[in-house]
């Protein structure tokens, strides 16, 4: 069996479980939408300053639900003891890592795209082609986020305070891609300026490559013997 097929099988396993219950997906989606609503209450809706801050609001509304998803991604594995089963399978730990990353990534992308629609409605944007850039950033930022997040989620699975610990570990590390995502989105949506987007894109791609490789290499040490 090809290695890529193994990654796909592992990811599809997780997504199938998600699909069968759908509860987690809908709850996470609802939570993300709720954040957008709360921010509109917190700021003056429709004002220019709120519009200027809206790229930040969008990414915050994606980050927090993403964190919840990451915390869940190893929960069922430890509760049912299936992680042991997977670890015992004759599969490289790096492949296991990529499978988990892929599952988390696809889950987050589905949430991201639906939330983007809610965002356009709530903040009264015209759905023009510049949103394609935002979608591209969702793909790339989601990959880096899932890569680092999967490593840390696996680290904190058996920790009692994992719900708090995971954001504490993850946020400082993903500062570069948060900055890239928010700034690129602001340039594209608010300033209609495409001159710096490419630079942010390069940064996110570099981040993705570095941390996918790092996660692939260290995951063996994270899951343990």
């Amino acid at each position, binding site marked *: 069996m090809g290695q890529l097929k193994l990654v796909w099988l592992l990811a599809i396993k997780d997504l199938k479980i998600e699909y069968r219950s759908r509860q987690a997906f809908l709850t996470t989606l609802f939570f993300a939408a709720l954040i957008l609503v709360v921010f509109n209450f917190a700021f003056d809706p429709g004002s220019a300053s709120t519009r200027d801050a809206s790229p930040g609001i969008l990414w915050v509304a994606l980050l927090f639900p993403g964190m919840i998803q990451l915390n869940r991604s190893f929960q069922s594995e430890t509760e049912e003891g299936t992680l042991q089963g997977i670890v015992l399978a004759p599969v490289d730990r790096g492949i296991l890592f990529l499978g988990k990353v892929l599952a988390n990534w696809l889950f987050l992308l589905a949430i991201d795209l639906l939330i983007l629609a809610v965002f356009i409605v709530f903040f009264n944007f015209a759905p023009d082609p510049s949103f394609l850039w935002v979608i591209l950033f969702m793909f790339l930022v989601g990959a880096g986020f899932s890569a*680092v997040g999967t*490593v*840390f989620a696996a*680290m*904190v699975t058996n*920790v*009692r*305070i994992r719900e708090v*610990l995971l954001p*504490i*570990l993850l*946020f*400082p*590390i993903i*500062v*570069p*891609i948060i*900055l*890239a995502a928010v*700034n690129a989105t602001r*340039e594209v949506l608010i300033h209609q300026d495409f001159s*710096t987007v490419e*630079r*942010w894109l390069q*940064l996110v791609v*570099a*981040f993705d490559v*570095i*941390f996918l490789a*790092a996660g692939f290499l*260290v995951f063996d*040490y*994270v899951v*343990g013997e």
Partner: protein
Amino acid sequence: MSFFWRLGSWSSIMWLESSSYFQQRADRYLKWAAWLLVPLYLVGVAALYAAFIHAPTERTMGEVQRIFYFHVGAAWTAFLAFFVVFVAGIAYLWRRNLFWDELGAASAEVGVVFTTIVLTTGPIWARPIWNTWWPWGDPRVTTTLVLWLIYVAYFALRSSLPAGEKRARLAAVFGIIGFIDVPIVFLSVRWWRTIHPVVITRSEVRLEPEMVQALLIAVAAFTILYFTLLLTRTAMRLQDAASEEIMQAVRERSD
């Protein structure tokens, strides 16, 4: 100095059976740390003299500029400390010797303390000079802040796990990932602010030769201080590990 020796010999009495590997190492490091106190004292006094008397008062900034020597000394040491955490992490994953874990944790402790010094002395200087406590526009400031957050998170991770092989393994992984992240953070923060009009630019400061001398002595003093603290903290952590071994042995015997 004799305090450290007494500390070392006292704990070796506690270790009634043949003293453990950790205990032997701890004793050795405490001795080294004690010897380091001599150059630390000499260079430390020289650094204070150079910073406060030898170096001239800066023309436009005035006396507050003297904080610069301590600020840069602490910053350099913090980066060195986090590099040691990174190296110790790799060494642990490779050799699986808990000594490397204790060394990495000790270095991270010292690093967080020095980063805190950097983040405290910075605003004291920045308020009168840049007219702001916290210049978000300066990539060095924001990178140092993120660095501080990363290594505080390192201790949040450590304290949530029971001592042992697993904690060492995960802390090593986090220490490696955290250090790899630093240059990317710096790059992103620099782009973040250069895209927008830069309110504050670091003015061109030409340093007098006496100022350069004071800076070099301060950096040397801080480096010696780092190694003294690193050896002491590593020794104390190893003693903790050794006494944990004794407790374990006692518990097993009493069962």
